[in-house]
């Protein structure tokens, strides 16, 4: 197990760099000097037990929270030094919020992704915006849902629509906070495949370690607000680490068909 408190070595086409980020909420330090990096086009996974600080760290990247220390840079720009609107042109997010109070249609929800690109305060959607939205809905195979009320959709449909919204936002980085929660297995695979397409660079928190192993190019493991391991899935998901961080005994195996690393869980430690 490699302790990762120092920044990871930079690669040639580094896109996202989180450097020494700490987050405090109501006096409690939830994230301690976390550093991580993602190369352009990579899907980087953030794993860790409940309460380890995954969502909190992601909130710093899509700018809901301001870090108490450290920087978040995307293609060299300090995201917290930009305006909220400029950040939103670079970073799109799928959060865990699912408000049901207002019955926006799917088309309206997707159109909100163009908000940071609108000219002027009162400007409405342009013809180009509408085309982009229609194309994004086709790409996530949700064009038949366009006139449906968003709150009435199933969990999988909602995530597809939100990915379409992220697509029209035309971000450099897509941040996903446990995008597969409450989805059946087909929808889990679909959402992750779409996210990889929508990218181009993806940072995602995931609970399912096998999904993380199969879909991420690189994993960071958070425990109590600190990065305790980083690397490719096969480097990270070793039995010792799983026992120490997640409290389970697991046997790594190779998927006979895909060759991806998968874990068989034996029992609690």
């Amino acid at each position, binding site marked *: 197990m490699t302790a990762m408190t120092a920044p990871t070595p930079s690669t040639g086409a580094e896109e996202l760099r989180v450097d020494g980020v700490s987050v405090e909420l109501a006096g409690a330090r939830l994230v301690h000097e976390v550093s991580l990096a993602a190369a352009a086009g990579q899907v980087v996974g953030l794993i860790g037990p409940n309460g380890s600080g995954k969502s909190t760290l992601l909130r710093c990247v899509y700018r809901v929270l301001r870090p108490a220390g450290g920087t978040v840079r995307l293609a060299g720009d300090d995201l917290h030094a930009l305006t909220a609107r400029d950040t*939103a042109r670079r970073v*799109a*997010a799928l959060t865990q919020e699912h408000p049901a109070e*207002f019955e*926006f249609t799917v088309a309206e929800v997707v159109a*909100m992704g163009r908000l940071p690109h609108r000219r002027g305060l009162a400007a409405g959607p342009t013809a180009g915006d509408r085309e982009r939205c229609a194309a994004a809905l086709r790409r996530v195979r949700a064009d038949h849902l366009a006139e449906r009320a968003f709150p009435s959709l199933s969990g999988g449909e909602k995530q597809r629509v939100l990915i379409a919204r992220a697509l029209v936002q035309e971000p450099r980085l897509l941040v996903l906070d446990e995008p597969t929660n409450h989805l059946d297995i087909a929808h889990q695979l679909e959402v992750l495949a779409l996210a990889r397409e929508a990218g181009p660079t993806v940072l995602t928190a995931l609970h399912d370690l096998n999904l993380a192993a199969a879909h991420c190019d690189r994993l960071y493991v958070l425990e109590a607000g600190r990065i305790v391991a980083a690397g490719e899935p096969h480097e990270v998901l070793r039995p010792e680490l799983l026992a120490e961080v997640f409290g389970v005994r697991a046997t790594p195996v190779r998927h006979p068909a895909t060759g991806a690393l998968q874990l068989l869980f034996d029992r609690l430690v």
Partner: protein
Amino acid sequence: MSDPVRRIPTLPLALGLAAALLLSLVCGVALGASGIELPDVLRLLGAGLTGGRLDAGDAAAYAIVWELRLPRTLLAAVVGGGLAATGVAVQALVRNALADPFVLGISSGAAVGANAVLLLGAFASLGVWAISVSAFGSALLAMVLVYLAARTAYGLTPLRLVLTGTALSYGFSAVTTLMVFSADHAEAARDAMMWLLGSLGGATWGSVPIAAGTVLAGLAYLACAAGRLDALAMGDETSASLGVDPDRLRRELFVVTAAVTGTVVAVSGAIGFVGLLMPHLARMLVGAGHRRVLVIAPLAGALLLVWVDIASRTLLAPAELPVGVFTAVLGVPAFLLMMRRRGQAFGGRR
């Protein structure tokens, strides 16, 4: 729920409502206790607009049409539009379709400020603006009080907000009543009724421009913020990820709501349920997008209040019923229906 949402196209609906409103304004001027015939009303209106000459015998009718009914009807439209617009703003602000300035106690708070000026002579140095400024200030204060009292570490829940608003609104109403009765005023009880239930009986040409200006400015701001209101309605985190700072937008909405509510209450008292129902009606007709809602809701609110005012002064003529009696008769059942339909969204598992 799984059917596509059925909607009415916004533009024809808006044009229809605008035409109906124009017609209703004429009705508002034509209908009344003194029974002036419609041709006379139109002739007197024309004379007033073009500066034509009138016979001496028309003086009384002209005064009724031009000095009483016209400003009153215009004010009804302005107040109705303003209440509907603030309803939209407050509902987006607290992310709940059961909120409005009246339910949250902001209207009763504004009435305290307006009364302090009218009855106690507070802020006399501000002249004609005193009532508006004072009502605005106390509306803002009431809003902040409700907000702070209802807030928890995990944000605002609708149930806490509505309970807090209701409780504080009783308190504000008590203060208003106390002021009215202690002001040694011949018609104290009726005045108190006017503040608590709302009435347009006090309308004059003096009150129309300030109210209309504030309401139109508030509407213009909200129309510019429509896209951001959509984002805010989707949640704070979503809003931030779309480049809309939710805290900043909420602060702006606080000020705009307080200004419009304060001004409207200063001229009409605390009229309930218009701000609650009109946004809801608009969303049923054209969907939740704020660009559309902010066109339809104010027009519908203006239309409703013009007719409610006509009813309030003609049904029991020459006596007048407070406008709020009618809006409550319409509003209470509608509120209960909405709450039942949204049972699980309202104070339940969210």
